[in-house]
């Protein structure tokens, strides 16, 4: 039961990050690795500000802004300076590693006993455990999901979706696809950093290493959602991503709790995650090959 509650809580909070990865990978078709840097950037900014006495809501908002700026930076590298997308993301990520250390002053900032935007909301709404935090996380995650859905149905949002599909066409209708990429990556990394800020408050610390594998976790969530729901509209795709994120966190919690019996340790987690993503990515090719051999 507690495992289920924790999976949903974490799934929804990390779900904001997964939505960000959905924007870069699926909407823009841009393999953006900056998220491995912007997730801890959000955590670092929020933690440093909260320790400095800032209101946790305001601190989280500043974290979102910092992530958006970093995302825009990757976008500018990739479009205005024609650096390969993958490399642009890696460069941002590496720069952020140093920057995050500078923001925090040391590799780990504990937040125990400090105010948290999540628990503050739970208290303000007079909610009780175990479902109080789940409810707040759900309102937050689905709130952002609905905002995103709305955005992707505006003229600007439609143009952004078309950019990932066919940039030539977008250009032909007088929209600069480069602007769409920069804007989209800002949006994506803003969400990722906000997720990082909330995860730091949720788990009680910010750590410079907490971003490693963010991209894989985000992709895993997107892919699990796609495999289960085969979404055909944005509204379903974002919902599937959030549910995928909950399932992914659930799988990790199960692996952490019962994996020991099979000889797994927490340090094997990244390997297992990557294998899950790899399996999902290889599935279509394997299926095609099997079909081909049958025919």
């Amino acid at each position, binding site marked *: 039961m507690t495992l289920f509650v924790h999976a949903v809580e974490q799934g929804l909070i990390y779900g904001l990050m997964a939505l960000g990865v959905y924007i870069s990978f699926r909407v823009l078709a841009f393999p953006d690795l900056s998220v491995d840097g912007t997730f801890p950037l959000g955590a670092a900014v929020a933690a440093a500000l909260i320790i400095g006495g800032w209101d946790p809501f305001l601190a989280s908002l500043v974290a979102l802004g910092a992530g958006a700026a970093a995302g825009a930076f990757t976008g500018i590298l990739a479009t205005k300076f024609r650096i390969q997308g993958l490399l642009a993301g890696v460069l941002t990520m590496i720069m952020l590693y140093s920057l995050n250390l500078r923001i925090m002053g040391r590799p780990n900032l504990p937040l125990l006993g400090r105010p948290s935007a999540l628990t503050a909301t739970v208290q303000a709404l007079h909610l009780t455990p175990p479902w109080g935090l789940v409810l707040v996380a759900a309102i937050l995650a689905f709130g952002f999901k609905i905002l995103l859905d709305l955005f992707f149905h505006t*003229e600007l949002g439609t143009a952004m979706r078309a950019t990932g599909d*066919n940039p030539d066409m977008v250009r*032909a209708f007088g929209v600069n696809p480069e602007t769409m990429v920069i804007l989209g990556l800002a949006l994506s990394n803003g969400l990722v950093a906000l997720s990082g800020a909330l995860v730091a408050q949720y788990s009680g610390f910010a750590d410079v290493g907490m971003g490693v594998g963010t991209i894989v976790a985000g992709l895993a969530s997107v892919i699990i959602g796609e495999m289960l729901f085969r979404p055909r509209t944005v509204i379903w795709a974002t919902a599937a991503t959030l549910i995928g994120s909950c399932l992914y966190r659930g799988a990790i919690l199960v692996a952490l709790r019962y994996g020991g019996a099979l000889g797994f340790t927490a340090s094997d987690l990244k390997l297992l995650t990557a294998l899950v993503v790899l399996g999902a990515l290889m599935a279509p090719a394997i299926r095609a090959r099997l079909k081909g051999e049958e025919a």
Partner: protein
Amino acid sequence: MILELSSISKTFILGAERIEALRGVDLSLAEGEFVTVIGSNGAGKSTLLNVIAGTCRPTRGRVKIAGRDVTRWPAHSRARWIGRVFQDPLKGTAAHMTLAENLALALRKGPRGLGLALSHAKRKRLEKALAHLDMGLESRLNERVAHLSGGERQAVTVLMATLAQPKLLLLDEHTAALDPANADKVLEVTERLVEESRITTLMVTHRMDQALRTGSRLIMMHKGRVHLDLGQEEKRNLTVDDLVGLFRRVGVTDDELLLEAVRGRSSA
């Protein structure tokens, strides 16, 4: 003049090789003209369209659209005056978006705001425009464009290119990748939409019969130059064989051209 090109040259440098795609092209299009462009392979037809659309900057010369010098403008900025259709039917639409969403993008040229992409009124308007194509597409607004056939996609692309009433329509062999029946249908749709909206049009085609039958003026290009510029009256009495003869006179004797002439005649 809607379009004025003055002494346009374009040289591509590929390693040690210099390719002169355009060598001093002068061309003016008056409002409402429908110009067909033919030429041998490598004549510079596509480069010419790219220079006009802004996806390729000329080495020398000036491009003026509606009286404004746009030579140094990026493609997306001049797109507000230009509609364009490519040879590849996949290039004109976003496959993973619905027909309605694709068309909605075409309703406006230029930067976008946060208004709803598809209102009820817009949907009605798009339905009407699709019904006008007479291909039964008006009932498929919510289908993904990926489900449409090549001919349907290209007809939709032509509609999208004219929807926002551009000043200039550029068609780059836009029926070449289609089977004959679909090519004829798309050409018919094109002629109808151009006639109704009176958009000034430049159509590159590899089919000489098409070039003769369609439009009000014909241009023949060879090796980066305009070699022939015929008005309505002059081209009316011309046959495909006459055109082949004219090509011969400027030194085109390659098999490629003969092949096109034959292709043109067989489907005429």
